[in-house]
């Protein structure tokens, strides 16, 4: 596993995403409520591009007529058929054991820290005063 600097944190606004090519993989990085998540940019069902997915809440109901929203913005709804996935680990909401999106570890680090280390995506210019999103592939 290598660590790749894929974006500065300011590049991906809250609720937004960025598609990056890391080692030949089409990966989409989401920014939700101050956290970043990296997933393969392809729905496991029919291959829809997840960069166009909706970031929604988990909607549950203990019985007809009563509704609860939780984890606002952390569930990913596929742009084609509406299949829902947990952004934290790529698991599907309806069949978590069998259907999942490949997810990748993400870290956020300050430029001053990064300049000391040995990182792969050397093409991404790093400034000491900024923070960066790092995806491990």
């Amino acid at each position, binding site marked *: 596993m290598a660590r790749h600097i894929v974006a500065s944190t300011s590049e991906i606004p809250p609720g937004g995403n960025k598609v990056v090519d890391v080692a030949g993989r089409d990966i989409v990085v989401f920014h939700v409520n101050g956290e970043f998540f990296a997933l393969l940019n392809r729905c496991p069902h*029919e*291959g*829809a591009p997840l960069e*166009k997915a909706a970031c929604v809440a988990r909607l549950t109901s203990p019985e007809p007529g009563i509704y609860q929203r939780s984890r606002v913005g952390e569930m990913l709804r596929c*742009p*084609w*058929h*509406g299949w829902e996935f947990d952004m934290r680990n790529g698991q599907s909401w309806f069949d978590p054991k069998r259907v999942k999106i490949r997810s990748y570890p993400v870290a956020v680090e300050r430029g001053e820290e990064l300049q000391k280390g040995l990182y792969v995506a050397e093409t991404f210019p790093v400034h000491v005063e900024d923070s960066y999103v790092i995806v491990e592939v």
Partner: protein
Amino acid sequence: MSEVIDRPLREDEKPAASRLRIVDCDVHPSLHSFDDLNEFLPKRWQQHLKEYGSHLRTPYLFTTPYPRSSPLIARRDAWPPTGGPPGSDLAFMQKQHLDPLDVEFGILQVLDLFIFSQQNLEFGAAIQRAINDWQLALWSHRDPRLKASILVGQDGVDLAIAEIERCAKIGEYVQINVSPRANEPLGRRRYWPIYERAQELDLPLGIHVGGYGGHAPTGGGWPSYYVEEHQSNAHTIAAQLASLVIEGVPERFPKLKFVFIEGGFGWIPSAVWRMDQHFERFRSEVPHLKRKPSEYVREHFWFTTQPIDEPDEARHLRSLIEWVGIDRLLFSSDYPHWDFDDPRFAFKTPLTDAERRKIFSTNARAVYKF
């Protein structure tokens, strides 16, 4: 050396394994706005559209709301960058759908303006005529891959026949589309003049599910949820299949072809088994039927594949396809709608090259005579 041996292989002669061009029997173009129709719609009806809009058979106010699962029932990635609704920009449709999926022919299915459900039959006919012309001018003539359908409302039979004649003279349309939810079941005699003309012209009848009729979409009444209503598409179309067969339409019009569009196909085996079983018991009620219902179905009806059924086990889909008949199925994507099927991934069961060729291309080419 002979010219034939010397000639390089054309693209369409290469083996299917390396290249399978597809026929997509359900592509939805959209009006950018109602003004698109102005050049095809007489002033009198332009004014009507502005002042009165649609008058439908649906009994409740606001029963045609969007979004239904997603805005304009569309894929979230299908909104053209140039603005306008999904399906309204030919260049974007080419770039997102026709080119990358190697669509050789796409059959246009227009749903705008609740085209079949207009209660004012003259207004409905004017809209249908305008949309029939619009399909050619803005789609087929700009991209010859896209084939137009003659849309007619069968509840105004005389108006429908006049429009069929007009379009047949133009000679560019590949089928006649009628409503899946007319005032009466589709097999009723009042609609037969349309079927008779379709047979004479050798044009298939396309029946695309959905839309609004005066009847509840389920046999049990009006559903509470969209998920429940969407489910009802299958039994609405099963009822229409039974009506057409049992009223004797294929018996009366032995060369007529029907294509049921967007009804899926999972429901077909049990519907056909049941019809056959009942036919044995009740045949004296319907002596005009000379053969078992299943025989009419296997000769006169084709079914587009989307929305494809997705059983947990792939072999069940395989059995389903065999029960329905590989020759009966026509691939459709439903682009750009939210339940779109991608031809590369939709069939989650093994198919041989020959079977793929049939479902994705040659069955449709035979029905529509490309």
